[in-house]
C-alpha cells in the first residue's frame, strides 16, 4: 500500500511537471502574456550579432548570478508592474 501510494505520487509528479513545463514554455513564448514584449525593442538588440546565438547583453537579465531571493523578489516586482514573465530571448 505504501509503495503504491508513492508510485501514484510520482506518476502525478511527472504529469504535473510535464504540464508545468508546457505552461512555462507557453509563458516564455508569450502565448499566455496579455501584452507580449515586442522583439527588438530593448537596448540589447543593438549588440546582437547575427550568428544564431544570443549575446549575453541581449536584453537578458544579467543578474542571474546574484542571490536567489533577490532575483525572485525582483521577478515578483516585475510581475506586479504588468510586464509579466521575463523574456529571455528575442524572437
Amino acid at each position, binding site marked *: *500500500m*505504501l509503495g503504491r*501510494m508513492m508510485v*501514484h*505520487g*510520482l*506518476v*502525478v*509528479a*511527472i*504529469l*504535473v*511537471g510535464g*504540464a*508545468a*513545463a508546457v*505552461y*512555462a514554455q507557453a*509563458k*516564455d513564448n508569450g502565448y499566455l502574456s496579455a501584452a507580449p514584449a515586442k522583439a527588438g525593442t530593448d537596448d540589447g538588440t543593438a549588440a546582437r550579432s547575427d550568428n544564431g546565438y544570443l549575446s549575453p547583453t541581449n536584453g537578458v537579465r544579467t543578474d*542571474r548570478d546574484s542571490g*536567489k*531571493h533577490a*532575483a*525572485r*523578489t525582483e*521577478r*515578483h*516586482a516585475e*510581475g*506586479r508592474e504588468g510586464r509579466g*514573465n521575463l523574456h529571455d530571448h528575442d524572437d
Partner: protein
Amino acid sequence: MGVFTSAKIEHALLKGWHAWLAGSFLVAYVTADENTYAMHQFAGYAVLAAIVARLAGGLLAPAGSPLRLARPGLKEALAWLPSRKGRHPLFARFAAALLLAVGLAALSGAVADSAAWMEHPHEAISEASLWVILGHIAFVTWMYAGRKAVGSLADWRAGMRLSSLPKDNAR
C-alpha cells in the same frame, strides 16, 4: 448529500487527492529556483487547488465518510491509549498539521505573487512544511512497515536463540 455513496469510491478519491497533493508539492519543491519560476508557480497553484478541494470535500462529505476532515482531540487520544485499538490518533494529528503547513505554504506562495515581501515567509513556511511531510512519511512507514519489520526481527532472533540451545535443554 448523496454525492459520495460508496466507501470504495471515497477511498479512491482520497488516494487520488493524496497523489495530487504529493506530486504537486514535489514538483513545486524541486522547481523552487529562479530559473524554473513558472513551473514552480504552476505546481504551487496545483498544491493550493488540492488543499481547497480537500477542504471543500471535507465540508461536503457526510458524517462518517473517510473524506470528512478529522478533528483530532485530546479526549479521543486518551480514550485510545488504554486499549491501543483502532486508528492511531497521530494519523489525524499529522493530517491536520500537513493540511495547515502545506496550505500555508501554498497560500503564502500565491500571496508572494503579488506581494514581494511575502517571499521570505513563504520560503520559511515551505521548508517547515517539508519537515512535517518527512515526519508524516516516517510515521506512516513505521506504522505500516517498521513495526512489522521489528516484529519479524524479534521472531528471527528468538528462533536463533532456541536453535542455539543444547537439544536436551530445548526439550
